[in-house]
């Protein structure tokens, strides 16, 4: 009995959540291709009244309105970019979870690659400057194995 209870406890995890969210069946478009585009677009738009949630995840009324709005635009024949532009014009760039590459985000987008490539380049240059002493030969495989044994193959 206890085992069974434990097993059930492992099997079923039931816990709290701040009210269920996201796309409602009533909002859905009949055309699956259009609906798929709507879903992917709604993952890129921020719910303005929530903390860091996309309108795809949020159950707020505003998120619902935006989901309906973007579907209306899609049905009207807008491209994805036109839908986003339409919504940005009304709510500002703040709604875009994927920040566009613009002067005010150059720093945001360029720092990571520059940092890693720059850091890697600097390290390589430094390594070339500080060449290993060629007078100190490498261990032979036998010596290597013996050393590993003595050191207990420490990592």
């Amino acid at each position, binding site marked *: 009995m206890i085992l069974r209870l434990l097993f059930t406890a492992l099997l079923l995890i039931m816990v709290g959540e701040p009210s269920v969210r996201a796309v409602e069946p009533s909002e859905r478009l009949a055309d699956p291709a259009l609906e798929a585009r709507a879903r992917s677009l709604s993952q890129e738009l921020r719910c303005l009244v929530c903390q860091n949630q996309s309108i795809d995840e949020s159950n707020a009324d505003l998120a619902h309105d935006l989901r309906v709005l973007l579907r209306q635009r899609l049905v009207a024949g807008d491209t994805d970019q036109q839908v986003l532009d339409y919504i940005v014009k009304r709510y500002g760039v703040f709604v875009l979870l994927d920040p566009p590459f613009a002067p005010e985000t150059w720093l945001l987008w360029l720092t990571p690659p520059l940092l890693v490539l720059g850091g890697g380049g600097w390290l390589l240059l430094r*390594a070339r400057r500080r060449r290993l002493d060629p007078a100190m030969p490498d261990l032979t495989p036998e010596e290597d194995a013996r050393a590993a044994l003595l050191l207990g193959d420490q990592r």
Partner: protein
Amino acid sequence: MLVEIGHFALILALLVAAVQGTVPLVGASVRSRPLMDLAPPAALVQFGLVALAFAAFMHAHIASDFSVRNVFENSHSAKPMLYKVTGVWGSHEGSMMLWVLMLTLFGGLVAGFGRSLPTTLRARTLAIQGLLGFGTLLFIIATSNPFDRLLPAPADGRDLNPLLQDPGLAFHPPFLYFGYVGFSITYSFAIAALIEGRVGAQWARWVRPWALCAWCGLTVGIALGSWWAYYVLGWGGWWYWDPVENASFMPWLLGTALLHSAVVVEKRESLQRWTVLLAILTFGMSLIGTFLVRSGVLTSVHSFAVDPTRGVFILVLIALVIGGGLLLYALRAPGLEAGHPFAPVSREGALVLNNLLLSGGMATVFLGTFYPLFAEVWSGVKLSVGPQYFDATFVPILAPGIVAMVIGPVLAWRRGNLARALRRLAPALVGALLAPVLVFLFDRTAPPAALAGVALAVWAMLGVLTDLADRSGLAKLPLGTAWRRLCHLPRGTWGYALAHFGVGVLIAGVVVSTAWRSERIETMHPGQTIEIAGRTLRFVGVTEGDVANYHAQRAQIIVERSGRAAMTLYPERRWYPVARSQTTNTAIATNGFGDLYLALGDPDGKGDWVLRAYYNPLVPWIWFGAVLAALGGLVSLSDRWLRLRLPASRAAAAVAARSVDSR
């Protein structure tokens, strides 16, 4: 009465911390043994006093003493006992108490187990830890007093946020804080070493166990938090790149880098300066993480401005800890011994690459987290930085690290041979190239990113297995001998193997659950069925009732496989009248390889309900992987080489015995 004793103990702890933070420092600089010897007892007394205060605070919560403001605001007499206990750290004041408890615990541990440390190093380390304790205790007493009274006492409390009344979130903070604050001790060691002007293999040997300890706690803490988000947020996501998550992820990334660079210091006496810098920055990130979560600065600049006292206090503390540490580093680091040189292709080289990518990844997360704040302050532009940004920047930075993670351990120290290493890893290489092809044949619509992810996951897992097989001589020796050699591999090796294998398992979970999840969202009437991932879900109906401190609406759903009822699931919605909040409780059935995930949505008022059903393949592997990694850390921690008090003579004897044994 007990509440006043707790309050008094807290103030006394502050005074002890002041002594601990100053006298041993002076003692170490004038070489006065009695002054230095004050440090360990002071650290133990400080821990004892804080533990007493914490116990008094916990007692107030358990006894539902609503004359204490914090208990009134965060508890209710009808709340289940488990959550009365865990509710202790559910509030701001309580979580700061937990923080300082961990801080003094680590100080006490170093005082208790650090007897083999040189007297001056121990005195200085404990003094720095004392100063950190002083800052935190001052913060608690001045701005967040948990023992604040409320007179006249209210009849009942306001109840804890229902979201926190959950086993996952109940045990998330202790682990997380153990990790966060554990890095305080590596910070103290780093500062002490800078004051001494010496960082060598011995220093790394003392620091590594503490870093491992903290890292394990942080890993488990983050995993618990992500698991909680997964089952609570109702649509199966498990990581949101939310500032609060990033706050814990940044010290984890740097802490992981620290673990690896400390290996180089210990084994090769190289990278000393970088390791000290990492130790300072890792704890700095822990503090910044606390600041992010505690001040509310990122949810909105305005909520921070409403009550800036706490935020400003922590900000000053961060400035002192990081600024002071970096200043000392700038002054002292050039005087530290330069490391031994090594070739770019070597074990050291791979570990440097690991450090570069982990720090680069950390910088990216930092930038993405704070950029909206910077942009708003500088140019007034309100921006959002969502998961798309992190997917596009963080993932490409870390992916080469996964490739290197497998190659590094098979490279020799100082100067390695890449071709030879890849030859040793040939089975893993073949597997990693073959797996995505097989997956593609199975599913022609698989996105390239998912295929690349599968390759990485297989590479990581097979790489570890190949290395283990190689080290035990599976291909060359008789099976029995190989098995014995495998069993006698040092625990440090097993620790590495478990942790790296765990990373592979985690990647598999992430990739497969993201790329191949299925979703059904339907309005259901009683008796209706829907199909998902080869299962039929039969919606029986919804029953209502009052349980403990909430009202429940509970749906019954029968899951059928090949025409037969396999199990029944009960997703529900709960209404907490005291806290006036609604929660939705998912029902998850897992078999270890995939989760059937059900969430009950809104009723339509005509007897129909919205049901959200998901099938998330391999999603449990995300947490299995994290647990394996943490387990690897523990195994490595138990390695006798890392034991703090291992006398040199016994180590030598062990080596001698081993070489005789192998003949």
